[in-house]
């Protein structure tokens, strides 16, 4: 199997789906002539032309709404937010239109649209541009929320998302774009179902649920803990809505302990939802309360050392695992 960067995997997914279905098009700020703010869409304009790779003004509410209308009339738009922080001005389009049209039209209209872009903190982009938006979007019925951590998951899930007949919120990561990972060779099409998680590392002593960027911190924490004889099992739900609770619960029933790691703030969100569902699904198998490690409950500081302090660190994850394992 070859290795690709996350950004290349996302690009391949878009390209393959655009090649396979002429109704698929890409729209967003600087996706065309600039080749994408993070170079995700590099080369797509020259391959597919201006009709299918569309540069927009800085007007998220506008192009999100245009995308929804296009989806209602039979196209399959892929809408890129330069970062998910800018989706807030398009929030009404997403929550009131994309997520509601099927229900309000009595099933007359599908809205097969993908909103995608980088989520979470980058390096020193300060509080207004460092949001983990997953808690906002996972709260909405009527949409899927996908948050892949690896290049392979990003490609397989994005292809499925583009083929999905409902709105999909697709959360990538600026600090993930350069991550390299194995992806099936060209010609070997892989579609990954929405709502299906993946075991990233097997272990017997404690389950770590992790998704998005902190998946890698969790992996490092697991390696450290293994040196002390604590074998962690890492489960990545990959899709946050709907949640693959059965896979998560199965792991917890095996390890009896669980730490949920997420980049979003601690109040509510998918991190809390996972804990809630797990304590019901695996209550009789728990040997300790489920712990959570997330960003601290503050707006993101600009200073680099403080940013590192606020984000979930390897050390905080290992501490949490030791805590639920009653280990020193």
């Amino acid at each position, binding site marked *: 199997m070859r290795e690709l960067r996350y950004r290349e995997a996302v690009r391949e997914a878009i390209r393959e789906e655009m090649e396979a279905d002429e109704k698929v098009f890409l729209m967003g700020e600087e996706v065309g002539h600039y080749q994408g703010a993070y170079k995700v869409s590099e080369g797509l304009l020259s391959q597919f032309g201006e009709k299918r790779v569309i540069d927009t003004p800085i007007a998220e509410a506008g192009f999100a709404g245009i995308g929804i209308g296009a989806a209602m009339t039979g196209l399959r738009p892929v809408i890129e937010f330069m970062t998910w922080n800018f989706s807030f001005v398009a929030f009404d389009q997403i929550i009131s239109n994309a997520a509601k049209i099927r229900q309000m039209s009595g099933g007359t209209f599908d809205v097969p649209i993908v909103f995608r872009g980088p989520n979470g903190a980058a390096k020193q982009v300060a509080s207004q541009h460092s949001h983990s938006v997953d808690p906002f979007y996972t709260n909405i019925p009527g949409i899927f929320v996908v948050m892949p951590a690896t290049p392979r998951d990003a490609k397989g899930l994005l292809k499925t998302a583009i083929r999905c007949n409902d709105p999909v919120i697709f959360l990538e990561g600026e600090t993930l774009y350069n991550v390299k990972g194995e992806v099936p060779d060209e010609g070997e099409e892989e579609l990954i179902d929405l709502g299906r998680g993946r075991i990233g590392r097997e272990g017997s002593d404690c389950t770590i649920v992790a998704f998005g960027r902190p998946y890698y911190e969790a992996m490092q924490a697991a390696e450290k803990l293994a040196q002390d004889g604590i074998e962690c099992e890492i489960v990545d739900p990959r899709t946050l809505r709907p949640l693959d609770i059965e896979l998560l619960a199965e792991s917890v029933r095996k390890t009896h302990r669980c730490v949920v790691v997420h980049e979003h703030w601690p109040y509510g969100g998918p991190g809390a939802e996972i804990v809630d569902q797990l304590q019901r699904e695996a209550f009789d198998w728990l*040997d300790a309360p489920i712990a959570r490690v997330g960003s601290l409950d503050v707006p993101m500081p600009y200073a680099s050392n403080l940013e590192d302090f606020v984000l979930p660190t390897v050390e905080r994850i290992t501490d949490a695992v030791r805590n639920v394992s009653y280990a020193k």
Partner: protein
Amino acid sequence: MAKIVGLPKLSPTMEEGTLAKWVAQEGDTIEVDDLLAEVETDKATMEFRSFDKGVLLKILADEGDTLEPDTPVAIIGEEGEDIADLIEEAKNYSPKSDSDSDSDSDSKSKSKSKSDSEPESKSEPESKSGSNTAAAQKPQRKSGDRIFASPLVRRMAREEDVDLADVEGSGPHGRIIKRDLDAFLEGGGARKKSSSSGAAGWERKAPVVEKASQMRKAIARRLTESKQTVPHFYLTIDVDAEGLIATRQQMNGSLDGEKVSFNDLIIKAAAVALRRYPKANASWIDGEIHWHQVVDVSVAVAVDEGLVTPVVRDADRKGVLDISREVKDLAVRARDKKLSLEEMQNGTFSISNLGMYGIEEFAAVINPPEGALLAVGALRDAPTIRDGELAMGKRMKLTLSCDHRVVDGAVGAQYLQVLQRLLETPSTMLL
């Protein structure tokens, strides 16, 4: 001169009493006949009044103690007296050896002094194997303390049949975690005795053992005695209740708000029937037959702890409304345990009614030394013959329990016949 006050025998049958409440306190000045305490006996909660005057110098028995008569409970004397010797004497008090054969065996050991009385044995019996040292070391947990254990440990304990009270917890707040239970089981920790655990996930618990109240013991003793010594037989008669229903409606229609019940009417009818057919109003007492000249009807009243049978005196001579009021008053006071002994003794005949629970008929245990007891079943819809025609009617079954020593089959049957006529045509009670 100070003296020890013993627990008085507050009823002729009292073998022990429970000190329900001290009304007087140490230091109180006591006059003769002042209320000292309330004592729960086999019959009722009785007042324990002082025969002496002076100052209550010392209380020797705690509320809740169950004691035999004469057990020292207090010292009364003059202010400032030295009572050290009396306290010593009271401590050394031992109950008179009790050779009465009829006292049940467990009542003998009841007069425990305070020092050796165990805490309430409400907890389930524990079982442990003493052979293993790991298991023999019980964790330092006060009785009644909550056992903290993880959900996993609770499930494992159910499956492994381990009593978590035997396991030491090493987690936060002493929480028992998987590691603790694993260590306990590896060390050969004891399973509960009943390894015959039921279906998975179902915890089979031992019965909860509770000390019987005085009332329960009295019920147990008297009914066992009745069923073992009185030759019971039972006669059932089916009564057309249409007349009774109509009469009750007329009566209640003429009353201003008050209502008489079917039971009140049945008490009246049963009493009138006893007056008209007195052979069923008799008792066998020590080889003699007592033909009662009064009709005193004991009425069974269910209370929280069991039942009591207050007596409606001269029920044959009283109006139904008077009977009704009296029964209501007796029932309320029975539930409040405020009935006097006199009100519960010396009935000549009993009535017990379970009709309100839908019981069609039942055979009750005679209340000795009474010779018979009438058990009243539910009013029910039933086909009935009226003027030679089959019709839907209301009927009621009455079962007479008879003491064959004084009430023979034919006697009981004729009594029921008289009663049946009165109930079917209530106006004939006026004759």
